[in-house]
Every structure is written in C-alpha cells, then in structure tokens.
C-alpha cells in the first residue's frame, strides 16, 4: 500500500493472499521493489506506481529477497539463495548484470546503501549472531567490516542521510527488540524505542524522522519519532499495517 506521511490517501499497490514483504522505493519515487511469495517462493518484483505494471527482476529458479535501490537508481542490491545460503548480490538494472558481494557460510542479508552509494551495510551471522557489517564498494575485492558490537542481535541497518550514523534493530539483554541508533563518533548505542517487538525502521530523507513497526496487543501498527524527541503513532484506519518505508523527497 501507499499513503501520505500522515496515513491519509491510502492506495493499494498490490494485494495477494501470499505474503508480501520488504518494500523499497526507487530514489525517484516512481517504482517500488518488494518481495512476493505469490509463486510459492520468495521473488523480488519491481512495480511502476503510476501504471501498476510489474515484473520479476530475475528469472532464476532460486529464492530472491531483500531489495534495496542504490541512490542513483541504477542498481538494486538483493539477497539470492542460489547456493542454499543467503548471499548479497548487486544487480545492474540496465543489463541485469549480477555481481556477487559476499561469499560466506553464514547468512548475509538486509543490505542497504550509503547515501553516496559508495558503501553498503548488511546483516551477517558470520560471528555466530546477527551483526551489522559495512563494505566499501569502491575497493577492489572489498572486505566486510563489522560495525556493531553491543549485544547479540543487531540487524536491518540503514544509514542516516549524512552518514553520521546508523539506525537498526537491536535485541536488548531482556530479549526485547528495539530500534537503536549509533553515531559514528560515539562508541555506545542509543536505544530509541520501548515496545516489545519494534521492527522495520525507515529513516526519512531529511534524516530527522524514523518510522517503524510496533505490535500493540496483537495489532501491528506504525509508530515514529524524530531524533529531537517527538513521537507519534499511526494506527491503520482498518486492519493492520507493518514494514513502512519512506520515499525520497518528491518534486
């Protein structure tokens, strides 16, 4: 679904009885990439918002998930399961050239681009628990560098728009999941939310607003906060919602 930032003007982009997850906007706001299980296996689709036209990004007989657009809109980072294990690839959309980015026995997924498009961050289980790693794409044979150290579960990270830090999902010592922030300059993390199962944070292009998913009672809804401290909730007018993603500024 698509909605204005206040939750108004809802429009359905796709409806399916099979799960749909991980929506990601193209930088120009004209397309959305997402994962749909409609064929019985996770696959990534790109859909044009104005025309509704959609296509599967790769005709490979393997699970494909976790799409993220590069800031210039030319590439899509993806997770492919063709060796039976989740590995990160970058797809050049123009000619569908695939470049493999990770080769590791552990899970590698949830890639996301730096604002300048020269780095990706992703979640990897290579240390024995999910942690966040960064990879410099400008280097030849880049090596992933671990950038999260606090706790045994840090995942689904995204850069702040000036790359001054990252927002991610952190599991506290009590087993609950919260949205956390780590500034590059600081050694410690800041836990920003306080429900039980906070997930799917998405940072607005202005870098000041974060929207995320919460569960209240048994109902999934959206909540958000500004880095200056304001908080809000966006319950759906009907049903439940989850996995929000901000678009870029649209001109």
């Amino acid at each position, binding site marked *: *679904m*698509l*909605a*204005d*930032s*206040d*939750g108004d003007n809802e429009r*359905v*982009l796709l*409806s399916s*009885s099979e*799960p*749909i*997850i991980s*929506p990601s*906007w193209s930088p120009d*706001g004209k397309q959305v990439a997402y994962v749909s*299980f409609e064929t*019985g*296996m*996770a696959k990534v689709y790109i859909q044009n918002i104005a025309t509704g036209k959609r296509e599967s990004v790769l005709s490979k007989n393997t*699970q494909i*998930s*976790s799409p993220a657009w590069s800031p210039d809109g030319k590439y899509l980072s993806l*997770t492919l*399961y063709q060796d*039976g*294990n*989740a590995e990160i690839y970058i797809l050049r959309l123009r000619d569908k050239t695939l470049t493999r980015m990770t080769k590791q026995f552990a*899970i590698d*997924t*949830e890639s996301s681009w730096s604002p300048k498009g020269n780095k990706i961050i992703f*979640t990897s*289980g290579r240390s024995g*628990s*999910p942690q966040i790693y960064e990879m410099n794409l400008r280097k030849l044979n880049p090596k992933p560098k671990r950038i999260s150290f606090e706790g045994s579960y840090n*995942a*689904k990270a995204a850069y702040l728009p000036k790359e001054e830090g990252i927002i991610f*999902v952190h599991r506290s010592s009590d*087993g609950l999941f919260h949205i956390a922030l780590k500034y590059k300059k600081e050694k410690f993390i800041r836990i920003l939310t306080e429900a*039980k*199962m906070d*997930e*799917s944070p998405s940072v607005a292009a*202005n870098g000041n*607003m974060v929207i995320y998913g919460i569960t209240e009672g*048994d109902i999934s809804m*959206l909540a958000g906060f500004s880095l200056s401290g304001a908080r809000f909730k966006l319950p*759906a007018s009907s*049903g*439940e*919602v*989850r*996995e*929000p*993603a*901000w*678009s870029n*500024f*649209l001109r």
Partner: protein
Amino acid sequence: MNKFSNFYFISIVFIAGCSSLQVTEESIANQDVSSVTISPKSTADKAVLANAVVYFEYDSYSLTSKSILALKGVVKLMSGNPKLTIGLEGHADERGTREYNLALGQRRAEAVSTYLVSNGINRKRLIPKSYGEERPLSLGSNDYSWSKNRRVEIK
C-alpha cells in the same frame, strides 16, 4: 498532520485479514514435540506424501535428536518411494527481523536437506525453501507458540 511534510509518501505492507495455512493450527498444537510422526498418506492415485514437521531451538538451525528420529522415517519413506519429491519448508518465529528470519528458515530447510542427502537421498528430490516468519502455525506471542513456529514442514 501536515507538519511532517507533504512531500513524503510511505509504502507499507498491508496485512491481509486471513491467510490460509496448509496445516491447521490444532493439528500441530495437539502434537507434542517429542512425538513427531511420519504418516505416509495414500491418495486415490496412490501418491505418497511425507507429512512431518521438525522443530528447532531459538536462533538455531541445528537438528535435535528428536528431529533426527523423525527424519529417519522420512529417509525410509523416500527410499521406498524412489519417485517421491518433497518440499522442505523452513519457518521462523516472529522474533527478529523479517529478512533475517527468511534466511534462518532457509538454513533450517537446508539442514534437513543436508541430513537427507547424507543418508542417501538424491538432492534433486528435495526442494528446500523458506517462508521466514510469514506463516506462523500458532499465533500467540509466547514461548509455546514460538516453539511451534520454528519448524521445517516436510511435504
């Protein structure tokens, strides 16, 4: 509400009101983890189905001794029915991120696949895949439900 800016749109995933589960919640909830059984079913055209579920610990894709017991039955069934191809459908509980759980479900399905292959089953007869946390069998947010949802369905 316009203080946030008119220039944003938000894409969200809307949860459909009902999802169809292929195995009913009751059939699993009534089944103790230790008594996982293989029940070969014959249909009119004599197709044989492996119909088993193996369960996993939190954050883990290691096979437990109970799982291995159930999988021995699957090996036997498949050895006796050389044309049988089975799907190995991995699942995770709701805790943690959706994409990581999708990958974790896949690791669980692959763990089952690896066991079956090491016991003489041709890899081509196995189709491992994952639904992550998207298809829970038990809907509560508690230890009992979570233990039922961390599973591989063999069918």
